[in-house]
Every structure is written in structure tokens, then in C-alpha cells.
């Protein structure tokens, strides 16, 4: 069968003219507006009500647009964003330690290993300060000093204290702030909220995004929704690895459906592996738990010098411990960026130095900090994390060092968007972790919350009207249009197919297998050989899935196996694309580490001459090789250099 390949898209990032520091303000002035009395004539769909979606829905609703918002949990307050622990960055320079928009911009570009767009990152740093103002005005109870001013800490290797936090529950408090603002709009009737609804298809007509098809997760009803524009704020796809720190429901389906409808998927191989998570303890393991990175401010990471040392940690004298980060990176020591810390831990464990019963972790030790600062101080700083660690492992970290190991945490890749956060499908906008925009090949700690809220409170509410303005006087596409009928049919067919296979293996069985393959071959380190192998395995596993998965029950009721099956089906296709992307990128950068491309002492080696671009993949029909579209990255402001944390 020959399938027509779609015409190659021409990517235009729409980066405004002018000096970097003026671009956003100039652009804001040039963009078209929608007058207040006309806003209610526009319908906007927002899929996802985590930080990125709830903030956008609340803001647009308040501006006067008619918003329909969707999430799969029973309430918007439960989005994965709620689990963020550590904090949110902003260039407030409240500590007077030399921070500035310029410095946050520079740190983010460098941290991303020079694989992000300068203009986007600059804007992110620029609006960061407004986010804090906004959140405080909403009543977000950030940590404070005795005088009543906001407190800050240094996070994830930053040399300035620019991170705002609310105990160990920053994501929770920020999400509740956005959720409360959203609740107000729901009460006011500007936002119609659809919890327990899952978007299963994007509807595109004449090249524009005109609506979505959803499944009501309680009744199984499949519905059509149309609007002038569709926003996806559906989060990241780390769960493709099965074990990750993401919430169990996090998935790629919304983004993947859009991808299949023509939206380009950018840099899918850029995965962030977080260095400080609780190691796997058995086969039943369903997810991995993050221990906030802030712990590295006071904890020291080590392994025994001898791989055969089986003594309990407190009986291993200091000189027989290898504080390998302090040894290898004297300048940054335990605070090296995530990718560097993760690979170092992997190397120790691979070389047989792992600790714990399964020898699959390294120690994160607070002994010194407790003797220096006292238990009270450590408890005040990390009490809830220590408690969580003890609940999960049954070990008391005040007495025994924590055992940690890297785990999949965040995905920098996502749907391609231009400077306006619009994908290459007009009318389809993508915000938060679901897009690829600001973190390049590696995200800095405390910057995802910043980006989600920057997108939702400030960027989208400015750029979306620019798109809508031309559509004044038009009504959204009728849901009776054949484009909607076709999309609904597609959804029904898939659901029926999944329910009718009635094979022998559970969805989780397949998901675990897929995850293991990707973790082993497309995880912390990758080779051409491992990636080729992974692609083969993913393909055959996918075939097996479609002939042997068992999904019991029916569509017409709450059916969690069916929900999972649809998500895992999309993870297969995504997994294959991740491997392809990783294989084509013949360099190491940020979270993407190719064993073939490293410096003599084992650090990531970029190839700026050949790979300073965004790899955006275009779907070319099931079973066909996707097409690669490149967006070149031009660095006018910073000069890419080899990252060094020595």
C-alpha cells in the first residue's frame, strides 16, 4: 500500500524583530486585540487544567472569553502539577545576590545545553517576576522571613537564590491558586468545566483546529466540542517509561492525537532523568517517588569505595567512602545539574558500587548537615520529605542515609510551537510541559512551574487574541460537520477495537514491558545499537498489544482498563519516535546522552555545527517513516560553550 506523504511543512517560529530584550514588549504592542465586548463571541477549548491550563482558563474566562476546560481527574485541583515540591524560579533579585532577567535567561539557555530558542527563554525570564506577584495576590502562602518578606532559596545548582517555595508543596499551592481563580470563573459561568473527560481526538478542518472529541470517563459518552481555538495543556509524557515520577494518569494521548492530525512533535528524545528518587524495590512497583532536589543543598552523595562493602553505612568510615560528585566536580559538587548528577549515579551503580539490597542506589547522607546545623534545622527544611521517605522505605533518614537513584521525571520534548505558542496547525495552541518550547535539552530545577504559569497567565492570553481577532463574526464550526463525524468515528472504532481483542495480557503488562525497553535502551545513555534494538522491540511489542491485550468491561461505564489501554496504545507510537529522534541526533546534549559522543572524561559532547536545531517530526501515516523538519537555532546573544561544572 502506498500512502501519500503529507507535504513538508515550513516552520516559522515567528520570532519578533528587534533586540532580544525588547522583542516581547514590541510584539505585544503589534499584536491584534479583541475588544472586551467582543470576547464573549469567542469559544476557546482548553484541554488540561494543571498549572498551564488552569491559569489560562481562569485568565481567559476573566477576560470575557467563553471557555470550555477539560481534565481527566475528578477535579482540576488534582492535576499532576500538584506534586511539584521544590519551588518556582523568578528573577526578582530579592536577595540582592546579583540575579536579573539577563542572568536567569543565561542560566536557562546554558542549562538547556544550547538547544532552546533565545527569544522564548528571554521572555520566560522576563515574565517570571510577574508570576510571583500574581500568585502572591491570589494568596499563595509562599515561605516568608520573620520580617514578613518572601523567602528564597538556591535550587538545583543555581548560584543565586531565586527560588520561591511553599514548604515542600510549591506545586500544590500554585495549582490551588490557579484552581481557585478557575473556580471563580466556573461560578461566574465564563468557564464550563468538564472533569472526568478525556480528549481522544483533535478535529481539524481546512487545516485549522476546530474542536475535539472527548469521552466521558463515567458514562462512556463520546461527545463533540467545537471552538474558535483549541489549547492543549496536557502535560508531559514521562510515563511512556512506565516507571516515572509522574502521576499515574499522565499521558501523551492528547498531544499524540494532535500529532497524528499534523502537529509536529519536537525533540521527543529529550527526557529529564531526576537524580534523587527512591530506588525501585520490587516488581509490583507502580511509580517512583521524587525526593526534592533541594535535598542536595544539605545532603552529601556517596558510595562505598569498595564495591564489596556490605557494612551498614554508619559503619563505613569517611575515608572508605567515595563522595564522587565532590571528587569529580569540585566547583559544583553535590549541586551539579540533574543530567550530570544522574549519569554519575548510573555510572557508580553500573560499575557495581550500588547500595541497598538490590544494589540499585547511592547514598544521600545528612549526617554532616545534622551535626553541623542540628536536627531541628534539617527537620524544618525537609521534614515532610523525610517523613515521606520513611513511609515508603520503612527507614529513618535522620539515622540512616537515604538511598536514591535517578528516575524519569520530565519531558523537554513536546508539540512544536512558535513564539506565540501556536503549533503548525493554525488554531491549535500548546502550553506547559506539553510543548517543547523553553528548556532545550535539559530543564533547570524550579523552571517548569515558571514556564507553565508564564504560558498560562501571561503569554497565551496575549497571543491567543491575536489569532482570534481575524475570526470576529464567525461562529465555531458546526459539530455536525463531516470532520467531526469522522473524528468521532475514529474514536469509536479505536475503543471498540480495544474492547474486542480480548487477548491474554493486561494493559499494565504491556506498559511495563514497553517502559523497560525504553529505559534500558533509550534512557540515561543511548547508543545507535541500543536504539535500533529498541525500535525493533517496540514495534513487535506494539503488534502483540494489538492482538493480545485484554481489556474487560464495556465502554458505557467507568472503565479504567480501557482508559489505560488507549494511553498505552499511543505510548507505543511515541516510544518509537523517541528512539528515532535519539538515533538521528548524533551528539550528546542535556538529557540526551549518546555513548558515541562524549569527551575523554565522559562528559556530554555537543555538535553545534550539525545539530544546533530543533528536530520536529511530522507524522506520515501509520507504518510510514515520519519526516524530519528542522528549525535552526540561532544564537545571537549567548555564545554556545561546552558546559563545565568542574
Amino acid at each position, binding site marked *: 500500500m502506498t500512502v501519500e506523504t503529507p507535504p513538508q511543512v515550513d516552520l516559522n517560529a515567528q520570532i519578533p524583530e528587534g533586540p532580544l530584550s525588547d522583542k516581547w514588549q514590541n510584539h505585544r504592542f503589534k499584536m491584534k486585540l479583541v475588544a472586551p465586548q467582543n470576547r464573549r463571541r469567542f469559544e476557546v477549548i482548553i484541554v488540561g487544567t494543571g498549572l498551564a491550563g488552569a491559569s489560562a482558563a481562569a485568565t481567559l474566562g476573566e477576560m470575557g472569553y467563553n471557555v470550555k476546560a477539560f481534565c481527566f481527574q475528578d477535579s482540576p485541583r*488534582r492535576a499532576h502539577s500538584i506534586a511539584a515540591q521544590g519551588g518556582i524560579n523568578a528573577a526578582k533579585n530579592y536577595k540582592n545576590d546579583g540575579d536579573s532577567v539577563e542572568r536567569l535567561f543565561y542560566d536557562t539557555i546554558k542549562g538547556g545545553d544550547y538547544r532552546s530558542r533565545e527569544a522564548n527563554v528571554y521572555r520566560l525570564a522576563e515574565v517570571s517576576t510577574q508570576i510571583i506577584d500574581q500568585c502572591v495576590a491570589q494568596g499563595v502562602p509562599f515561605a*516568608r522571613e520573620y520580617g514578613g518578606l518572601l523567602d528564597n532559596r538556591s535550587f538545583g545548582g543555581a548560584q543565586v537564590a531565586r527560588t520561591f517555595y511553599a514548604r515542600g508543596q510549591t506545586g500544590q499551592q500554585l495549582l490551588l491558586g490557579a484552581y481557585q481563580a478557575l473556580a471563580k470563573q466556573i461560578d461566574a459561568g465564563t468557564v464550563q468545566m468538564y472533569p472526568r473527560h478525556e480528549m481522544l481526538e483533535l478535529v481539524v478542518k481546512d487545516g485549522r483546529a476546530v474542536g475535539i472529541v472527548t469521552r466521558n470517563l463515567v458514562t462512556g459518552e463520546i461527545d463533540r466540542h467545537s471552538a474558535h481555538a483549541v489549547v492543549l495543556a496536557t502535560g508531559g509524557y514521562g510515563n511512556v517509561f512506565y516507571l516515572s515520577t509522574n502521576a499515574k494518569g499522565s499521558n501523551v494521548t492528547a498531544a499524540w492525537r494532535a500529532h497524528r492530525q499534523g502537529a509536529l512533535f519536537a525533540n521527543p528524545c529529550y527526557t529529564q532523568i531526576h537524580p534523587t528518587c527512591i530506588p525501585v524495590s520490587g516488581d509490583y512497583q507502580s511509580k517512583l517517588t521524587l525526593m526534592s532536589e533541594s535535598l542536595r543543598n544539605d545532603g552529601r552523595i556517596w558510595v562505598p569505595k569498595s564495591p564489596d562493602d556490605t557494612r551498614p553505612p554508619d559503619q563505613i568510615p569517611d575515608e572508605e567512602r567515595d563522595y564522587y560528585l565532590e571528587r569529580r566536580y569540585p566547583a559544583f559538587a553535590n549541586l551539579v545539574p540533574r543530567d550530570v548528577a544522574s549519569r554519575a549515579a548510573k555510572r557508580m551503580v553500573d560499575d557495581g558500587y550500588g547500595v541497598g539490597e538490590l544494589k540499585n542506589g547511592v547514598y544521600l547522607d545528612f549526617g554532616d548537615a545534622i551535626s553541623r546545623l542540628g536536627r531541628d534545622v534539617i527537620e524544618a527544611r525537609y521534614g515532610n520529605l523525610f517523613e515521606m521517605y520513611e513511609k*515508603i522505605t520503612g527507614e529513618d533518614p535522620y539515622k540512616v542515609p537515604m538511598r536514591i537513584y535517578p528516575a524519569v521525571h520530565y519531558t523537554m520534548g513536546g508539540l512544536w510551537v512558535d513564539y506565540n505558542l501556536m503549533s503548525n496547525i493554525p488554531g491549535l495552541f500548546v502550553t506547559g510541559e506539553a510543548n517543547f518550547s523553553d528548556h532545550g535539552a535539559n530543564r533547570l530545577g524550579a523552571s517548569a512551574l515558571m514556564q507553565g504559569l508564564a504560558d498560562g497567565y501571561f503569554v497565551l492570553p496575549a497571543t491567543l487574541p491575536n489569532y482570534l481577532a481575524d475570526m470576529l463574526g464567525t461562529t465555531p464550526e458546526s459539530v455536525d460537520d463531516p470532520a467531526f463525524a469522522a473524528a468521532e468515528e475514529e474514536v469509536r472504532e479505536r475503543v471498540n477495537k480495544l474492547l474486542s481483542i480480548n487477548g491474554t495480557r493486561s494493559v499494565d503488562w504491556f506498559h511495563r514491558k514497553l517502559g523497560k525497553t525504553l529505559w534500558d535502551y533509550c534512557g540515561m545513555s543511548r547508543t545507535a545499537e541500543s536504539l535500533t534494538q529498541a525500535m525493533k522491540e517496540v514495534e513487535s511489542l506494539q503488534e502483540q498489544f494489538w492482538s493480545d491485550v485484554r481489556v474487560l468491561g464495556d465502554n458505557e461505564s467507568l472503565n479504567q482498563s480501557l482508559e489505560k489501554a488507549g494511553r498505552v496504545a499511543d505510548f507505543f507510537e511515541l516510544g518509537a519516535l523517541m528512539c528515532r529522534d535519539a538515533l538521528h541526533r548524533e551528539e550528546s546534549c542535556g538529557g540526551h546522552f549518546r555513548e558515541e559522543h562524549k569527551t575523554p572524561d565522559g562528559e556530554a559532547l555537543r555538535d553545534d555545527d550539525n545539530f544546533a536545531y530543533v528536530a520536529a517530526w511530522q507524522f506520515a501515516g501509520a507504518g510510514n517513516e515520519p519526516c524530519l523538519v528542522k528549525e535552526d537555532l540561532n544564537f545571537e546573544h549567548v555564545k554556545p560553550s561546552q558546559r563545565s561544572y568542574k
Partner: protein
Amino acid sequence: MALNLTLRVWRQARPEATGRFETYEATDISEDSSFLEMLDVVNERLSDDGEEPIAFDHDCREGICGSCGVVINGRPHGPLERTTTCQLHMRHFTSGDTITIEPWRASAFPVLRDLVVDRSTLDGIVQAGGYVTAPTGAARDANSILVPKSASDTAMDAAECIGCGACVAACPNGAAQLFTAAKVSHLNLLPQGQPERWSRVSDMVDRMEDYFGSCTNYTECEAACPKGISVDFIAMMNKDYLKARFKDRRRQGQSG
């Protein structure tokens, strides 16, 4: 060590269907697994045997999203204090135990399926006034609002509520006082919350009373709360509610 347990689980196919307890043997369960991981294992075996898995809500599995929550041997979230169901580990059970697992029982939380209930009435209470009106973009510099550390810390104590509904499930009257008080207090304690202080408390309490039973100070809610939210916040809310009612403070510019 592996555990062998007997589970009595509430099964109910649909909201309108009648439910019943089913008994399952959960053998060879790792002590280190969480309660939900134990259910995962049971579900996988059920599915292998051609029986539909037990439905339960969950997402973060870190004790923060508030999705999970079942009644375990009569106690919401089970035997451990200050612990959500997802953070309860099997090492707290003994081989040979029979464990009864039910959904939240409250008239405001209809069962949707098995252990899954509809808690949207909690969202309704927040929609009635559980926010500070702060239009995006109009905020002044964050540090121009000073908040005494003690006020901020107490507000945070209240704000830690995860909205799981265990307080309602624990209350003999099915009241939602602790949930509502946590949100009211979080915002009413802060300077930012003052302009809407009195309307917030009246509107939220009124909405709460539309759906939920009334509080008769059993304080079961505090004991069941996985975040240890204190019943003192209920007293705080009641005081504000009385004040708001006593005089119509809305007309007085909401202050004082």
C-alpha cells in the same frame, strides 16, 4: 516477607446499581508495596481470571493530589495516622488479616463505581468563594505585601488540605466543616484575603450546607485527615461566620 490476606471489597457496577462485598484472596503480597500496589496486583490477577478489575481513584501516589481514598477496616485511609491510602504500605498489615475495603460513605458523595465516588460537591464549595479576586496582571510587587511569618505559616497549615474528602467520610453526619474551614482559614488569615473575608465565609458555608450534613463536633474529621488539619480552623471559621452574619459586613466595605 510476603503476606497472605483476605480482602472484602465493595463492588458496584454503576451508580444506580446495588453494591455488595466480594471476597478475594490476596496472596504473596510484598510488605514493601503500597496499599494501591497491592490492589494493582489483585486487579491484574482478577483480569487474568476474566473478572473486571476493582475501580479506585488515584493519580499522584505521593499523598498530595487527594485522588485516592478508601475506607479500610472502617477507617478512611486506613490505620495509620496522617497517611493517605496511597502512602500506606503493606508492612503495617499482618499475614492472615482480613481487610475490608469500602468507598467513602456520605450522601454528598454518590458511588460511581466500586471504590470511586463523586466528590464534585467539594469543588462547589470552593466555587462559592474560596478564592481571592486577583485579575491576572493587575498585581503589585509581591514584596509590597508584608505577611507576618506566623500568619503565613498558619495559613499554610490550613492550605495543605488535599481535598480528599476523608473528613466527610469520617464524620457521622457527613459534614464538610473541616474541608471548608481549611480553605476559609487559609485565605481569611492572609492580608490578601481581607477584602472578601466576610462574603467568602458566608457564601462558602451556605453552599456547604446545601450539600452536606451539619457539624456536631465529633472531631472524627481531624483524626482521619491525612494532612493533620486541625479542628481549630473550624472554630475560626465559625467565628468569622457569626461575625459576618451578625452585621452585614459586606455593606461596610468588608473590613474589620
